[in-house]
């Protein structure tokens, strides 16, 4: 998963749904640790669309997130 630091608001919603507890939200960035299963729940719950399988800024990823949601 990729997190766009410019879009991320550091709210921690992603960490709350992560089934394997590998998302660390610090005071400055989101760090996806080892063990990510690429389930994509974090991307679906992100209130600002800052997480994606690819570059969260790309239109393609945005469309994917909308479809998945």
């Amino acid at each position: 998963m990729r997190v766009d630091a410019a879009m991320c608001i550091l709210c921690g919603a992603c960490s709350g749904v992560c089934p394997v507890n590998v998302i660390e939200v610090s005071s400055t960035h989101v760090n996806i640790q080892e063990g990510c299963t690429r389930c994509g729940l974090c991307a679906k719950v992100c209130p600002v669309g800052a997480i994606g399988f690819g570059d969260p800024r790309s239109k393609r990823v945005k469309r994917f997130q909308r479809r998945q949601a």
Partner: protein
Amino acid sequence: MKEKYDVVVVGAGPAGSMAARATARGGARVLMLDKRRELGVPVQCGEALNEGVLKELKIAPDPRWALNKTNAVKLVSPSGIEVRIVEKEVMGKIGYILDRKIFDKHLAILAAKEGADVMVGALATGLMIKDGRVAGVKGVGVGGKFEFFSDIVIAADGVGSRVARWAGLNTALKLVDIESGAQFQMVDIDFESQTMMEFYFGNKIAAGGYAWVFPKGDHMANVGLGVLGGRAEGPAIDYLRAFVEKMPNLRKGKIIEINAGGVPVSGPLERTVKDGLLVVGDAARQVNALTGGGIDHAMRAGDIAGEVAAKAVSEGDTSEKRLMEYEKRWRELMGKRLERYLKAKNVLVSLTDDDLDKLAKALSEVKFEGISLTGMLRVLLKAHPKLLWKLRGLM
């Protein structure tokens, strides 16, 4: 840095600060950690709070953080039918619109004044485990790596809730159990009244949630919404932009702050204690699932947790069995209520826009004498017996 405390609290939101304050008051050595370098930031909240909890916990409202008093509610259905409820009918409750940036700091100061140590810019990265039980917190912060041993850890780390999971409690939220929220603090906007909180319903406006306008002051308000994880077609902030664009009184406003966050609406955890561990607030999912409000429950639960933790430390027994007093007491205080709200939420999210309009119409035609969930339902059922089936979960 290595040191030993009786109790370490992870997270300095309302739950954590109340827990740290009560722990210190009970005579135990307590440290409260928070990853943030500035408490209260970033705001992840609509910032509305009932005055009741402040009275109970003896916290005097201060105009620096209690920005605005509200005493009325306006509910708006998808097609625009309005239901107004004024103070006396909202069970005599007065609400405050807070400035969480100041409020959260104030609560941390109360904890510190009571004797709690506070460490900001300190991210917990794991628990210390000794003989199979929680024995402290490790992490990294502005001052480098740290390890703090303690008899009890209080997990107050909010919606992300990692600490409890490190201890073996599964707090992971399903997608349908989290509201994804976004909010603009807006200025230069119009609204009906500075004392009225506005709620807008509809699956196009906020799928499985609602939008709100909470006045913060003169021509200034928190404008936000929450969408249910499994329902939303796209990020919450896209819904919010569309909502603001649709409202003539908001469209011309200016955004001076963007907030976002997740609200757990799963109902509370099945178990909130383990040997040497207490879970409080959003981390324990102690949230009103219907409204998404969590500050008051977090503060009450935090206060109980701190009191129990201090007692357990002084008795030299911090086992799960001893700490169950916390779980028993918070469930007595708010367990039934939280369950009821959860049922009501499940009903609300099952309603179509058409149902919501019918509901609003029925409500708008009735003059309430004091409002309660059951009273409201009685009115509704008389007017729209067909809704009965959908609302049966509330009986």
